């Protein structure tokens, strides 16, 4: 046990000391924070540029010809003036006497079409701001004739909180239920992308650097591989925690956003659901670790390992390639095959679970199946590692090379 602890300590510490580890660990969260930050910044910039634009255009005079008679006189002032004809309005724009000119034809109410004229400027957003200006003028005009309550209705700014009931008559809360499974899926996907190669390196390193023989007289191959697997799991958990930080930051930044606050308030913190999803994530990660370890145990170098691990990766992401079959509300053979084939089961189960397509009994069965396979694969991987620890060529796959037969 002490030796396993020593291996775990050594493997974890040496990974933590590598800049490449921190780059891969922080890359995705930094990217996420960056995207969130940029999106927040661009939102802020858009708001301020609209204000600036308004200030800028308000210095200019808007001329309007209203043949439809929709414009209330109350909105007319020094900045919004009426002109008698379209030709006159256009001429004023050309001469720079007004900033913008709008022609509202007689059939405007039927066609809802108006024409706008302005001089070309370097500011690309000016056109959209100008068309908005007409809408604002029309809105201001309409508001002089109708009640404030009608404005709310007419401006289509009504938010409706929808409640959906499931078959049993309970509130279904699909969105709230999907948040944790989607996070589990995201974390798992990132883990397999980030850790695949690192796992192989960890398993193959002793063979590649010819350390196996020296180390195996001090520690058994079983203790060595268990130590390595535990260290990879610990590092995986670290990745999960680091991944959650930007998610929490995003939730904090956008807590006032109606959509985000709607999602946050609807998240179901049901302990059973959380534990079941965590079990699915942990067993799936075990399965992936075991499969990578098995590949690493059978080959002599990391380069060869990365060639063979492609098979594991394809198996894992197979459900994404057949996503329509996996996400079918009426499960077919492919849905079940991908859900229960050990390698593809984790992502298939996570996808179906995230979108409410996985009945509870299938979910339970899936966790048990992935759990059993993860242990089986880890056991075989540890045996294969013991058998091939000093085999410096690619082992042929057989019960003997997997350490299952003497």
């Amino acid at each position: 046990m002490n030796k396993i602890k020593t291996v775990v300590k050594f493997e974890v510490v040496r990974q933590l000391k590598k800049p490449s580890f921190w780059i891969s660990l922080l890359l995705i969260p930094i990217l996420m924070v960056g995207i969130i930050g940029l999106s927040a910044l661009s939102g802020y910039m858009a708001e301020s540029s609209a204000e600036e634009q308004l200030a800028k255009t308000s210095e200019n005079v808007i001329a309007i010809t209203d043949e439809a008679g929709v414009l209330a006189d109350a909105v007319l002032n020094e900045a919004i003036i009426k002109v008698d004809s379209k030709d006159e309005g256009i001429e004023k724009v050309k001469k720079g006497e007004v900033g913008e000119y709008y022609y509202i034809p007689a059939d405007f109410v039927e066609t809802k079409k108006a024409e706008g004229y302005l001089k070309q400027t370097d500011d690309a957003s000016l056109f959209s701001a100008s068309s908005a200006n007409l809408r604002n003028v029309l809105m201001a005009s309409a508001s002089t004739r109708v009640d404030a309550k009608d404005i709310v209705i007419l401006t289509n700014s009504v938010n409706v909180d929808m409640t959906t009931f499931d078959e049993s008559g309970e509130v279904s809360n699909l969105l709230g239920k999907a948040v944790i499974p989607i996070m589990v899926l995201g974390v798992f996907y990132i883990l397999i992308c980030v850790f695949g190669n690192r796992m192989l390196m960890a398993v193959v390193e002793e063979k590649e650097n010819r350390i196996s023989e020296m180390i195996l007289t001090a520690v058994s191959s079983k203790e060595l591989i268990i130590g390595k697997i535990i260290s990879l799991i610990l590092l995986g958990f670290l990745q999960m925690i680091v991944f959650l930080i930007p998610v929490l930051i995003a939730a904090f930044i956008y807590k006032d956003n109606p959509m985000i606050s709607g999602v946050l308030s609807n998240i179901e913190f049901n302990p059973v659901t959380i534990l079941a999803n965590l079990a699915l994530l942990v067993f799936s990660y075990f399965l992936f670790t075991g499969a990578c370890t098995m590949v690493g145990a059978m080959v002599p170098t990391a380069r060869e390992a990365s060639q063979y691990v492609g098979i594991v990766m394809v198996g894992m992401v197979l459900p994404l390639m057949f996503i329509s079959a996996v996400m079918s509300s009426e499960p077919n053979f492919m849905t079940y095959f991908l859900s229960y084939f050990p390698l593809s089961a984790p992502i298939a189960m996570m996808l179906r679970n995230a979108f409410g397509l996985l009945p509870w009994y299938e979910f339970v069965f899936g966790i048990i199946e992935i759990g059993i396979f993860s242990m089986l694969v880890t056991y075989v991987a540890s045996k294969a590692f013991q058998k091939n620890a000093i085999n410096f060529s690619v082992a042929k796959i057989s019960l003997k090379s997997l350490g299952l037969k003497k």
Partner: protein
Amino acid sequence: MTFKILSCSCYNKRTMSEVSKNIITVKNFKIAFNKKTVIKDMSFEVKRGEIFGLLGSNGSGKTTTIRTLLGLYEPTAGELLINGERYTPEKATVGYLPEERGLYKKEKVIDTMVYFGELKGLKNPKEWSLKYLKRVGIADKADKKIETLSTGQQQKVQLGITIMGDPELLILDEPTKGFDPVNRKLLMDIIDELHQKGTTIIMITHYMDEVERLCDSALLLKNGVVHAYGSVKDIKKQFNGMSFDQIFVKVYGEDANE
């Protein structure tokens, strides 16, 4: 022709009860890989405290024998015992310097040595490692990454890892390979020092002068069987007083000519 000569020379400073025991007993050892038999039949003993030379041409099965002795391979038949039982790393009584040896290239010298020291159950591996590095003249490399060391310096680190924890049995597979004469002498001094302390040493080497100078007994392995085995003195007598260089050429020269 196979000679079987019993060794009588042994040197040690351990207790008398231990002296009477063999540290290694190999009986009717046979091993085959994919139907190819590497060792057909091999039996020998190594007395506690002696330096034992395991000799043979390339591919004769010396390394395979050692790997099987250390439990890295399963024998097809026979018994290979250290202190009367199959070796497992839990016992941590063996220091092994394999022929195929490497280190964690990206790690610091001291970190690697401390790691191995902890695995071998050393109480203060850092202190031991620093003392050893000073002894072999590379104390200034302790905080350097292994990949920045020269081959000779790396070999010194490997030797340090092998002898740390004061192992009861030391197995050195071509220990002086790649060493310059100065470092070779340093290594020989260390081996001699350990021998004086009572450590049993098995040496696989192609330098026959080392065998004559250091070994108490030896075994010549040929075509998967023991060709000659006994004290160095007795083996020389069997070959009419030839030097080990001459014996080696006589025994394995035919193979090279084939």
